[in-house]
């Protein structure tokens, strides 16, 4: 901070901070942000905070309703399932599969996609379009279908699902980054930097990249919600994570048999899935709105 700030001065916040302030003004975004942070925290601490082992079966408490029900028990906060497993523990442990694995898939896709996209964006002509459209053929198949094809060949497993989802997300990242860089690189400030004699690496990382972070954040949230939904969907179909692993989609599928008898078995994991995806989407949307707002103001 400058030491000469004696007079009252209204300081305009830096661009990234401005986006943050815009988002803070939107209560939905704040709530979504907290929900997402909470679920990420829950995921990281899941081995420590689960009250019981998610696979432990309590034969004395089969199909126990949640604790707020008259016949519920405080020991099992969210009740138990038909094998007497604690649903709260399963939901917490399941976040590793339903949130953790998508995060990893998106991260891998982002690293690969952003590098190829940046390379494509910084080069010209045939090289640029080759790189840009290299993986476009994958886009012709919907992600779920591609996952099904891969699973049909390699058999159902989590690794195959991850592979399918990562593959589908990569071209999206390539396109977004390529287009963002392409938009930026003909702006005057980039020309000015080029005339400063900077090298290409500096140009990419210090000059252009700060200006496309917001686009990247948006694409990442979008990719994350797709990935979560896909993993859950495949789990539900029995093609992804295999039971007894406490994946939320798998839990939903299992609960179908007892849906009239014990609705909490379906509602609670469904709610977890719903809240996570909703908060990610709201967050992504408000980031986009905040960026639009900032562009409009300046």
């Amino acid at each position, binding site marked *: 901070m400058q030491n000469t700030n004696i007079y009252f001065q209204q300081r305009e916040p830096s661009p990234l901070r401005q986006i943050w302030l815009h988002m803070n003004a939107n209560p939905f975004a704040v709530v979504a942000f907290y929900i997402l942070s909470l679920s990420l925290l829950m995921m990281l601490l899941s081995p420590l905070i689960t009250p019981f082992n998610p696979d432990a079966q309590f034969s004395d408490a089969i199909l126990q309703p949640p604790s707020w029900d008259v016949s519920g028990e405080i020991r099992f906060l969210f009740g138990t399932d038909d094998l007497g497993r604690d649903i709260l523990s399963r939901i917490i442990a399941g976040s590793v599969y339903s949130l953790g694995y998508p995060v990893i898939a998106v991260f891998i896709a982002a690293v690969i996609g952003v590098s190829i996209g940046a390379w494509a964006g910084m080069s010209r002509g045939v090289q640029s379009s080759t790189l840009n459209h290299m993986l476009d053929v994958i886009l012709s198949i919907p992600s779920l279908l591609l996952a099904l094809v891969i699973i049909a060949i390699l058999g159902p497993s989590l690794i195959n699902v991850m592979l399918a989802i990562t593959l589908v997300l990569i071209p999206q990242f390539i396109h977004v980054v390529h287009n963002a860089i392409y938009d930026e690189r003909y702006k005057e*400030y980039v*020309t*000015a930097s080029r*005339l*400063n004699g900077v090298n290409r690496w500096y140009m990419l990382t*210090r000059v252009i990249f*700060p200006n496309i972070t917001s686009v990247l954040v948006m694409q990442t949230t979008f990719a994350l919600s797709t990935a979560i939904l896909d993993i859950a969907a495949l789990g539900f179909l029995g093609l992804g994570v295999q039971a007894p692993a406490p994946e939320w989609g798998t839990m939903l599928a299992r609960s179908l048999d007892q849906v009239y008898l014990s609705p909490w078995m379906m509602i609670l994991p469904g709610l977890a899935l719903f809240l996570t995806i909703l908060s990610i989407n709201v967050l992504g949307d408000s980031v986009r709105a905040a960026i639009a707002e900032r562009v409009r103001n300046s």
Partner: protein
Amino acid sequence: MSKLLEVRNISKSYVHKDGWMPSKRVCALEPLSFDLERGETLAIMGETGSGKSTIAKIIAAAERPTSGEVFLNGQSLKAMTDQQRCRYIRMIFQDSLRSLNPQTTVGQQLTEPLIFNTDWPAQQQKQHVYDTLRKVGLLPDHFGFYPHMLSSGQQQRVCIARAIVLEPQIVVADEAFVALDPSIRAQIINLIIDLQEDMGISFIFVSHSAEIVKHVSDKILIMHRGKMIEFGTTQALINHPEEQLTKSLLHSDHNYKVPLHSTTKE
């Protein structure tokens, strides 16, 4: 001794592709040559689309000429890389806000040319940026500012600071005064005149304001549809213009003869 800047037969043409038709060549700039001495100011004037900005951009190497060469102190610029060139020739853009990176601070942007063109330690670079900021009438405090926090006059000052931070010999300004308010424009013109006196920089600037051109330039180059139609010293062109266009461009619409006011102090 060779001239500071010699422009020899530079031209620029664009290739237009129109579907399956054979591509057409559109000539934006026909071959032209001129010289510039040390410490001189050259003004390029002309109508919209006459190629005046193209000349400025070619000299500053923001664009490549289709043919011809530019010599600096007798050396061809073609052989130089951007890095070598920018120690001698720098450019100020028309829109100051757009030519500044919105996501990095003023200080970082001014340090950028120093990182790549000097082997000074970080402390010395910083000190030099502070000195440059003072030179253009800003404060060292502005080091940490982002461009959008500054007023348009201050942004233009930052652009000038970036242009002179490497102590170049030539600064090219492409319509740098158009978007400024009158009082700020006068300040910037004063700044440029001062810098020229202190550092002996040669200026090349594109403008369509006859008043400014008459006030600051030593030589004028008149462009018309990609051709150079007149080139000469300011005095000669004002007193004996050969072309009608020169006369009309340099004729400022003085509807009012105003007595000299000596009231405004600096």
